[in-house]
């Protein structure tokens, strides 16, 4: 944000036009190195040629504070506010990293993905992608097999972002949902295989390289007992908590995430169930979804049939599909 080029010529003081003042102000108070560096940055200098010692030509001092100190109030608040918002969106990730380390990631994230929306609810939407884009190269000495520590962080961030989006996104509360009895009726009628099921808008299917779902539950339970304080409080409790919450070993995990009664709920899936659900969500008929998933599975047919039976009962109980089917 602070280095955004401007086509405006550097303005003459003392009365720069409003757009120049605003672009300069934004460049200064959002600069990652603070107000003095912000005022000296090329982005700010292109707009208003003021060095650190002459800020009072544009911003008045008060009886108690210099212009630079007053601008720092905005600069501090900018990062404090957005970091607080990101910590709120990723509480388990904050727990596992500790607030200090989390804020370091989040601070860098804000440089690459500053908010461009009127709502803070979109602030975090690129954070998992940012973690992936900035993940450290895996050392050849460490071998290439299996996911690494960054994958766990990215998985956890992905889960937490999905939870936040499902919580306040569109849902299906109050709408008629597909019930187990509806499925039984379709099966009895012989046309179940041809049915296409309409997923509720809050249903999300997630695949992870680490078992982050149980980890998330543990982290949240720990958080309710022992909150992580924001950085700056020398909170040794966060370090203790992280030690009490070991990072799980790698292992594939499939999770369906949905919302009923305005509460987000998580449902572990077997790989076979995940394949069936993914096909159904993509619009396949029940028959095609099952056939495709079965063909990719090494489990015997009777085992798959048993899984399916139980799965459809769970999915209807969890309200994964609207009542309307075709």
């Amino acid at each position, binding site marked *: 944000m602070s280095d955004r080029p401007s086509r405006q010529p550097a303005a003459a003081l003392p009365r720069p036009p*409003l757009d120049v003042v*605003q672009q300069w102000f934004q460049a200064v108070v959002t600069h990652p190195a603070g107000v003095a560096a912000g005022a000296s940055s090329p982005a700010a200098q292109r707009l208003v040629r003021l060095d650190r010692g002459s800020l009072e030509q544009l911003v008045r001092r008060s009886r108690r504070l210099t212009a630079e100190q007053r*601008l720092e109030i905005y600069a501090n*608040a900018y990062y404090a506010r957005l970091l607080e918002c990101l910590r709120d969106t990723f509480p388990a990730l904050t727990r596992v990293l500790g607030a200090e380390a989390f804020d370091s990631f989040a601070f860098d994230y804000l440089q690459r993905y500053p908010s*461009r929306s*009127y709502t803070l609810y979109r602030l975090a939407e690129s954070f998992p992608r940012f973690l992936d884009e900035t993940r450290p190269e895996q050392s050849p000495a460490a071998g290439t097999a299996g996911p690494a520590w960054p994958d766990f962080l990215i998985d956890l961030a992905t889960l937490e972002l999905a939870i936040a989006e499902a919580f306040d996104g569109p849902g299906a509360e109050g709408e008629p949902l597909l019930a187990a009895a509806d499925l039984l009726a379709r099966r009895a009628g012989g046309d179940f295989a041809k049915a296409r099921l309409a997923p509720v808008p809050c249903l999300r299917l997630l695949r992870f390289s680490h078992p982050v779902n149980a980890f998330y539950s543990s982290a*949240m339970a720990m958080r309710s007992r022992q909150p992580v304080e924001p950085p700056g409080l020398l909170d040794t409790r966060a370090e203790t908590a992280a030690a009490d919450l070991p990072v799980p070993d790698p292992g594939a995990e499939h999770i369906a995430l949905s919302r009923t009664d305005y509460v987000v709920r998580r449902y572990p899936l077997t790989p076979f169930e995940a394949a069936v659900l993914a096909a159904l969500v993509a619009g396949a008929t029940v028959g095609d979804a099952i056939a495709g998933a079965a063909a990719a599975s090494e489990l015997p047919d009777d085992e798959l049939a048993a899984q399916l039976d139980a799965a459809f009962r769970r999915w209807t109980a969890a309200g994964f599909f609207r009542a309307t089917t075709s």
Partner: protein
Amino acid sequence: MTTPPRLGYANLGLGVGLRAAHFDHILRHQPAVDWFEVISENFVDSGGRPRHVLRQIAERYPVVMHGVSLSIGSTDPLDFSYLGKLKKLAAEVDARWISDHLCWTGVLGSNTHDLLPVPFTEATLAHVAARVRTVQDFLERPLVLENPSSYVTFAHSTMSEWEFVSRLAEAADCGLLLDVNNVYVSSFNHDLDPDEFIRSLPHHRIVQFHLAGHADYVTHLIDTHDHHVVDPVWELYRTAHQLTGGVSTLLEWDARIPPFPVVHAEVLKAKHFMGERLPAPPPLPDIAPATTPPAPAAASRTPPQVPHPLHHLRPEVA
């Protein structure tokens, strides 16, 4: 034609800012609150519980929508998609009016999510007044604008904040939300007289008051909304009440939020400053003071106080 008091908007009485921490209490106990103000951005896009709760509350209480993202002072174009969402929600909850702040939040497409100050110049006045008129035409109702707390002023300003606000209200024919705490905070920060500020406004255009607590850093005050209203702000409120004849009054509490009865009791204290004969207010609940400045040794370990409102809700997960 003479502008009617409060632009014809009703005096709703003593209200409380609706916060997620109080959702369950309000739905369960239906407290005798006169009205609620909601942060528009917490609800305009919500397809989940926040909007569901708001619908229920709007069935029982008058609701006012208070935004933080209009950015009326910005030189970026107005966001008509956002305005459309405001208009839709206002119709849905029968919002009595829509307010936001006399500020800007970002330029060049970015949003700092802060309420940033404008220079008080003729050019700014013309720019903002034109945008207010556009917004009012779109929303088909008068806009109500709040004086934000501010921490800088610009050397090239040519008028006081109260002159700017007064002339803007007349030029754009809009209403004012007088945040009494913000007057106190800004006046302290800019070495101004808060009493002169309040006395100099067009009182017939004041639709609503805000009250809130702030944090005292000795060299400056920050509008943190995390504590009780301090006595000097109550005294300013007394003055404002006398000058306006009384308008809708709303308490904001956005951080370190206490239980709802504490917040409600805080706004009810306003009755003692309206000239009503009432018993002495109850003693304050025990809340750690935010008005004590951090000791120098501790200052570096204390997270910065964030001016509020911070408009973000935590999800509920099973």
